[in-house]
């Protein structure tokens, strides 16, 4: 379902929480009775899915942080997977 709208605002899905876990030395996504340990790149994207940024803004911000361009495709493919998993929703 590659129909990501660049102008849409993303947030975490209902009941999901993103946080740093000191004891696991990792960012995690917490949800009803479950938890996913996130890779650094997944954490970087999800930290921006906070109901205040459009997909476009998320890509731009990541490109700035990583001092690169052309991240759009990778970010989109991650967002598609994250949506499939039910982690994020369009506000």
């Amino acid at each position, binding site marked *: 379902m590659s129909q990501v709208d660049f102008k849409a605002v993303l947030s975490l*899905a*209902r*009941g999901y*929480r993103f*946080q740093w*876990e000191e*004891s*696991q030395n990792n960012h*995690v996504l*917490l*949800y*009803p*009775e*479950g*938890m996913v340990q996130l890779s650094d790149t997944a954490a970087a994207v999800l930290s921006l899915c906070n109901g205040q940024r459009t997909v476009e803004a998320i890509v731009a911000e990541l490109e700035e942080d990583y001092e690169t361009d052309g991240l759009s495709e990778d970010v989109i493919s991650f967002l598609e997977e994250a949506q499939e998993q*039910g982690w994020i929703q369009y506000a």
Partner: protein
Amino acid sequence: MPKIPSPLWLLAEVTHSCPLQCPYCSNPLQLVPKKDELDTEGWLKVLHQARKLGAAQLGFSGGEPLVRKDLEVLIAEARKLGYYSNLITSGVGMDAARVENFRELGLDHIQVSFQADDATLNDYLAGTNAFQHKLDMARAVKASGYPMVLCFVIHRQNTDRVAQMLDLAAELQADYVELATTQFEGWALANRDHLLPTLEQVREAERVAHQYQEKYKGKMKIFYVVPDYYENRPKACVAGWGRVFIAVAPDGLVLPCHSARSLPDLELHNVRDRDLDWIWYESKAFNYFRGEDWMKEPCRSCDEREKDFGGCHCQAFKLTGDAKNADPTCAKSPHHHLIEQAIDTSRLNPNSSKPLLFRKRQINANLS
């Protein structure tokens, strides 16, 4: 011995009191009386110590956790400490205002359990008129901005209604539905002849669940787990003893699994006497089934031992008399015939002559 991992899950069984009397309750037959419960300070100490150990998921359970008047205090502290907190409830003991307050205090998730999809069967099994209130509370939970998570506990007396349960869930616009087959512990084991579904029922429930999973894909997540009696392989109880999960009983007893109280020789400790760090890493109880040294055959040489860790030790103990035996739900167990006998009994004798034993409600004194 490999490094002991930190726990991720704290189950806080804050009380054994419950306004419901479900005959499949997983609480022990000897319920902890109210006067022996940890006080607020005691629970706050548990929350702090377990969080420091690494627990990130917190379940408030019971009994009925809503019975505790200090639940709000515990919820607020849990949020402050960074837990993701789950309230596992019948819904009896809250109203829309209390739900809203939980939300403001930082509770992350409420799971409302149902006994059935209709009032008559639900209220018969619960031993009280709770069905309409449960419907109202499921709606209140969602209206408050939570995901709606419903749990139907299924067994022989209601498993033929899985389709109706899922219809109800869809009508309520549930986000997640768990169809949880009764685990045969505690009161459920005492009532097993009434509750164990037949093989035909299990397969039919599975078929219906899969059909609804397809139908509601992307809208409502449906979880259905085949009961271990029909799987031929045991479940990795609590994801492996002393690996992920720590439970604290109403009286402060710290348990590697919530029914471990019944096992002999563990030397369980109380959080009033020792801190959780010591109990998790050092105590005999938490190390009892860690690693593989304790294993007997057929587990010791089994190539699936790292997957299920020998299964449920409480089940092994209750059915075979030795917790170190393989869980008899495993077809490789020399005691597997005990499971087959139970299945035969349930198939041949669908109407047990023994009365259904409803659990006790309020516990103010030790049961004799």
